[in-house]
C-alpha cells in the first residue's frame, strides 16, 4: 500500500505525458484575451485565404460546403493580423462590447 494520497486536482499523468489534442486545445481558451474582433463581410470576401494562412492561432478556415470563411471565436486573440492582411478589405475591427456575447472580462486568468 502506498503512503501517498494524490488529490484529484494535483494528478499528473506519468512523466507528464498527455494524449495529444485533436482539432483544438480547450485547456487554453484564448478568446477571452480579445478587446476587438475581426468581422467578415462575406459578400466582399474573395476567399483568397490570407486570413486562413496568416492567423497564428489558426482561427480562420474555409468551409468547403458554403465556400465561406469561418471564424473561431473561442481562440481568436484579436491580434488583427487578418484584418491587416485582407486584400479585399472585407474584414473590419469591431469593439467586443458591440456584441451581446462580447468578451467583457477575464473569467479566468488564462
Amino acid at each position, binding site marked *: 500500500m502506498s503512503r501517498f494520497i494524490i488529490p484529484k486536482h494535483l494528478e*499528473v499523468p506519468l512523466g*507528464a505525458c*498527455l494524449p*495529444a*489534442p*485533436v*482539432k*483544438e*486545445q*480547450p*485547456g*487554453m*481558451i*484564448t478568446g477571452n*484575451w480579445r478587446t476587438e474582433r475581426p468581422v467578415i463581410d462575406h459578400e466582399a470576401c474573395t476567399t*483568397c*485565404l*490570407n486570413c*486562413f*494562412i*496568416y*492567423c*497564428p*492561432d*489558426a*482561427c480562420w*478556415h*474555409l468551409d*468547403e460546403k458554403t465556400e465561406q470563411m469561418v471564424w*473561431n471565436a*473561442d*481562440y481568436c*486573440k*484579436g*491580434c*488583427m*493580423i487578418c*484584418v*491587416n*492582411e485582407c486584400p479585399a478589405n472585407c474584414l473590419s475591427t469591431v469593439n467586443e462590447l458591440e456584441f451581446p456575447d462580447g468578451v467583457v472580462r477575464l473569467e479566468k486568468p*488564462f
Partner: protein
Amino acid sequence: MAIEVKTQNLEMVKSLRQVPQEEHYVPGHRTCQGCGPALVYKLVSKATGGNAIFLGPTGCMYVANTSYLCAPFAYPWMHTQITNGGAVASGIEAAYQVLIRKGKYKGELPSIVVMAGDGGSIDIGLQAMSSMMYRGHDALFVMYDNESYANTGIQVSPATPYGANTTFTPPGKNVPEGRVLFPKDAPQLVIGGHPAVHYVATASVAYPVDLINKVRKGLNYKGPSFVHLHAPCPKGWLFPAQKTIEVAKLAIQTGMWVNYTWENGEYTYDHTPKEYKPVKEYMKGQYRFNHLSDAHYAKMQAFIDARLKAPGKPIAIPVLGPREQ
C-alpha cells in the same frame, strides 16, 4: 532480415488552395497576440502533414505553447532542454531506424522536427544542432528566428540585429546603440561544414507557401536539413501585433532578411525586390531601434549593403569588431 526504412515524400504546394485546411498545431496556446514563431509552428506543422514527431527545446515555443498541462500539438511532441534539441532528435531518429529495421514499428519513418529558437539553435543549442546535422540523421532542424532570447524577457542573442534595445543591451550614455555586435549568420554555420547536409533554406512567415515548400523539401531529403525562418516577435521588437506580416515583408524589401535556398552547393534566391528600400524604413517601425541616430542607421545600411552582395555566402563584411573600434 532487416526491413528497409521507408521515408515520406511530401508534395509541393502551388497555392494557398492546395494548403491543407487541417491543423496539426491547433488553436489553444498562450503565445502573444500576433506571435511570428507561433505562425511558424502552424506552417511547419501543416507542412509535415501530421506524420511527425516534434521536439520543443525550452524557449517561447515551449513555454508559451504548453502552459499548464496542455499543449497544442496534434502529433507526438516532446520537450527538450534548450541545449539538446538536436541530440534528443538524433536519439529518436536512431531509435526509429532500429525499430523499423527490426519490424517493431510498422510504417514510414515519421518526420522528425526540432523547433528551436535562435538561442536553442545557434547559441547554447549550437553543439547539439551541429552534431545532428553532421551525423546525418534524417531530421529537420527548424530555427525560428525572433532575434532574441524572448522567453526569458527579450535578451540579446547571437541573432539579434545591431542596434536593438534588448533587456541585456539597453542603450545608455556609454553604449548609445544598445546592441553593438552584428548577428551570426545561422545558415552559413551549417552550409559547407556538414558534409551530410544537402539542403539549407531561409524563409519568412510573409511567404507561407514558400515556407511550406521549403520545409517539405528539407523533410524529403533522406538526411538532415536546416531551415532558418524569420518570425517577427511583436512583444520583443515592439511593434503592434497586427503588423507581424507587414514587418516580415518589409524585412525582405529592405534586405534585412533574404529568402534563399542552398541545395547541393547551388544558391537560389526568392522574393528579391527590384530595388531595396533603405533599412531605416524597416527599423523605424520597431521601437527596439527607436534610440538610434542617423550614424547608427548608416552603419546598419553599410552592413546590409555588403551582405546583399552575396547573401548566404562567406564574403568579407566591412564591420569593425568592438575591440577594433
